[in-house]
């Protein structure tokens, strides 16, 4: 059981799936699912192992290294599980579409490349897998053509800028330390000067910041997430952007190390405080933008930007509680955001639209998807008993106790904004009046319900028993040189405040049962169609009573002037000025020989003029 076999299965499986698709669709579908399940089993078997293996392929004498530790295992299991669930979801979502072979190939290649990234033990292999991931993601984002092409283009341009920054950082490391093996750089880096470390961290910070979509590098994300096919949006938001998070963890805590990372700069002008501040801004602004969206997937995309802020805040703050919170929030976010994207995808699959203004009442028609979406938004808000609560609790607690009141305020206030947009999502799609044209739709197919159910169950499981993932996260934190956390199966014990989820759970369960009994004891209620009691039996016009358009209108009017995406406009300004500059440069090369002769003569005339006037030669 070694790492290269895992990667060979992952990449080989993807190619084989493509080839099988040429013969039969059914065989391809089942093979894709089997491959992704095998990957989960394989990764699960690697739990707790620590391997480092070097392969010499003679690339400038640099070893290609694969390695496994707790950090990469944790990411690998998240990647393979989400990949499998999204592949299962794709079975019915992609049925009957064109170029499905290609779709499955790319989906599995993205997964394999992400596994490669987390298993890479040197920066060259990291970079190769990183590029494979970026380009195959580009092909999937623009799969739908039309506006998706523009979204994909925006993504790949920003991705390439990130890659260039990565290369710069990597070369700078190679020049000073003569190796790209992560475990060899780590001990050597303490000899580097502060300025050099700052330079490296900034280069890698831009590279990973673009992938992780922190402000001001977020502008590719809303377009890409909303235009991609739904199962891939789930992968994209759930796990692909988290490769940026992995990169941050790798560079901050594995390569540079805790002490150097926190010691860079002083006071509020230190590298990590600036990153914390960026994280806080990333929480607050996108949250408010998300409230104003009318496209369900675009709303979720902005919410992804906001939630990524929590992860960055947790990771950059640099205490053991915050780091645990940040990593745990990455894991929770992968689960609940994938769940929400899949739920919206199922709705889109059945109704053909994801416009929040033209849906409603689907809870009756798609009960399983509705419950999934409900669990998803609860975790997104951070309602207790979902995983999202525990991770946010960890982050808040450390921010408050370390005296960073304002960062805590940003993080907490973001939560209240989250309530507004997530309720809008659930209200406009699932609650309220069912539209006339949707009265005949069926519930979502089994292959869509299965991932939704599995994700909902795991969110609740990790919310009630957060000790399961926290044990792994604790091991990661310890390997970075942090103190161990006192983790139990149902929470965290410490002097400055204990969390006990099992108490909350049992209290809530008992309270709910008592209220339910009281509810049942009351007089029986009659079930009445929704329109009946509103209009008191009188005729009601069809489709008039679901008030969803501009749901938070009074608030929109107040905050709209402040929420233009200035950064996006700025990038577009740069893009358009580069284009016009290129246009004027092109005019010089007109292709007409006469012009070229004229340039030559003019240039000669200029030289002669210079010689006559000043006699420099």
């Amino acid at each position, binding site marked *: 059981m070694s790492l290269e076999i895992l990667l060979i299965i992952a990449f080989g499986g993807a190619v084989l799936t493509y080839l099988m698709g040429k013969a039969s669709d059914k065989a391809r579908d089942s093979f894709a699912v089997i491959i992704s399940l095998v990957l989960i089993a394989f990764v699960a078997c690697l739990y707790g192992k620590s391997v480092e293996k070097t392969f010499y392929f003679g690339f400038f004498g640099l070893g290609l290294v694969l390695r496994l530790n707790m950090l990469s295992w944790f990411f690998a299991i998240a990647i393979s599980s989400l990949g499998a669930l999204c592949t299962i979801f794709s079975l019915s979502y992609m049925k009957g579409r064109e170029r499905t072979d290609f779709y499955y190939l790319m989906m599995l290649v993205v997964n394999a490349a992400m596994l490669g990234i987390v298993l890479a033990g040197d920066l060259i292999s990291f970079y190769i897998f990183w590029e494979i991931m970026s380009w195959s993601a580009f092909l999937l984002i623009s799969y739908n053509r039309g506006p998706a092409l523009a979204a994909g283009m925006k993504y790949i341009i920003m991705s390439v800028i990130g890659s260039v920054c990565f290369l710069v950082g990597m070369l700078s490391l190679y020049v000073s330390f003569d190796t790209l093996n992560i475990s060899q750089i780590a001990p050597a880096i303490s000899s580097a000067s502060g300025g050099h470390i700052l330079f490296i961290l900034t280069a890698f910070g831009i590279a990973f910041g673009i992938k992780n979509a922190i402000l001001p590098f977020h502008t590719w994300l809303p377009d890409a997430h909303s235009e991609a096919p739904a199962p891939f949006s789930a992968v994209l938001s759930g796990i692909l952007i988290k490769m940026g998070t992995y990169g941050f963890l790798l560079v901050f805590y594995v390569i540079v190390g805790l002490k150097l990372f926190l010691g860079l700069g002083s006071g509020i002008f230190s590298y990590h405080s600036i990153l914390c501040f960026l994280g806080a801004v990333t929480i607050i602004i996108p949250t408010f933008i998300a409230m104003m969206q009318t496209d369900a997937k675009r709303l979720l995309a902005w919410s992804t930007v906001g939630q990524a802020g929590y992860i960055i805040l947790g990771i950059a703050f640099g205490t053991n509680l915050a780091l645990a919170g940040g990593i745990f929030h990455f894991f929770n976010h992968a689960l609940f955001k994938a769940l929400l994207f899949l739920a919206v995808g199922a709705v889109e699959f059945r109704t053909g639209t994801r416009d929040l203004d033209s849906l409603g*009442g689907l*809870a009756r028609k798609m009960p399983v998807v509705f419950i999934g979406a409900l669990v998803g938004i609860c975790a997104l*808000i951070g*309602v*207790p008993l979902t995983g999202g*609560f525990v991770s946010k*609790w960890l982050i*808040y607690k450390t921010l*408050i*106790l370390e*005296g960073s*009141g*304002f960062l*805590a*305020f940003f993080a*907490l*206030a973001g939560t*209240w904004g989250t*309530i*507004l947009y997530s*309720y809008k999502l*659930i*209200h406009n799609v699932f*609650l*309220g009046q069912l539209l006339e044209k949707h009265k005949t739709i069926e519930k979502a197919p089994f292959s869509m319900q299965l991932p939704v159910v599995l994700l909902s169950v795991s969110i609740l499981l990790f919310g009630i028993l957060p000790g399961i993932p926290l044990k792994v996260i604790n091991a990661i934190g310890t390997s970075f040189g942090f103190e161990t956390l006192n983790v139990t199966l149902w*929470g965290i014990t410490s002097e*400055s*405040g*204990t*969390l*006990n989820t099992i*108490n*909350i759970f049992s209290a*809530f369960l008992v*309270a*709910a049962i*008592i*209220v339910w009994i*009281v*509810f049942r*004891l*009351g*007089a*029986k*209620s*009659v*079930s*009445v169609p*929704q329109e009946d*009691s*509103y209009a008191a039996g009188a005729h009601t016009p069809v489709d008039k*009573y*679901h*008030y969803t358009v501009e*749901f*938070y*209108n*009074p*608030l929109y*009017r107040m905050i709209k002037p402040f929420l233009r995406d200035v950064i996006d406009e700025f990038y577009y300004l740069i893009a358009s000025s580069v284009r016009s500059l290129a246009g004027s440069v092109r005019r010089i090369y007109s292709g007409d020989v006469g012009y070229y002769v004229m340039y030559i003569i003019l240039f000669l005339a200029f030289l002669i003029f210079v010689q006559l006037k000043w006699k420099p030669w």
Partner: protein
Amino acid sequence: MVTKVMQIILSPVLALIVGVFFLGLARKIMARIHWRYGPPLIQPVIDMIRLFYQKGVSHGRMFDLGIILSLAGSIVVVLFLPFGLIAPLSNSGGLLVILYIMLLAPLGMALSGGEGANPNISIGISRKLILSLGYEVPLLLVLLAVMTRYKTISIMEVVNAQQSTSWSIISFPLFLSGLSYFLILPAILGIRPFDVSSAPQEISSGPMAEYGGKYLALATIEHAFVMFISIALFVNLFLGGAANPIIFFVKMLVVFVLGLFIHAVFPRFRIEQAIKYLWKWPTLLAFLGLIMTLAIGS
């Protein structure tokens, strides 16, 4: 163990009694301010019992579940809040947990109301959520100031610290935060001038428009709990809690009656006006409170 179980049973019951008493008292005091005689003090209890045996209308599964979720959430919050020194679960997560479980009540109501598919409900919920965003901004600043000042997230320790020194409301710089909390208290309680979401004359009580029978009874109980929770939180954080339930109750009563006077004489804000107010003076005070707390702490 036995005392713990007793406390777990006792504290929601006490909270319910206090909350319902406040509902009755509110009507009586309001009536006297309006120069009326007013209904008897136990009128809310009579109403609830009557409603409980009346036939109600249901609009689906979520319509029922939402209200159960909401009420259960409020009961759990009560278990976390010290009432006097009765605080059965206060060491399971502290203020942050209280803050988050307090979400369940409006969320449950919103889910239940959403299933009702009544335009008045949608408008009411939209206003309620906007209003809560409005008052959460100063409220969070206030809570953060308190937690930073006492360097703990446990509400029990905040109470103990005040018992041994002085009340936060008369200590510098937390009196700013306390004042801010008091200014937003009517918004948290949803009483005038902040009753935009339940405005009976405009949108037929908003989220409660479709409730009848036992739904209305449960919604009233829920309202009583919310009343108890927001005032008890203020007493715990700023008036030093209390060593026994009676003193605690007296403190709550004083805060409640003061809030009621505001309720009785002010007309209703529009939602934009409410947000503008909430994000101006209370936020400014809370902001100053937090800054000074941070400055003193460091």
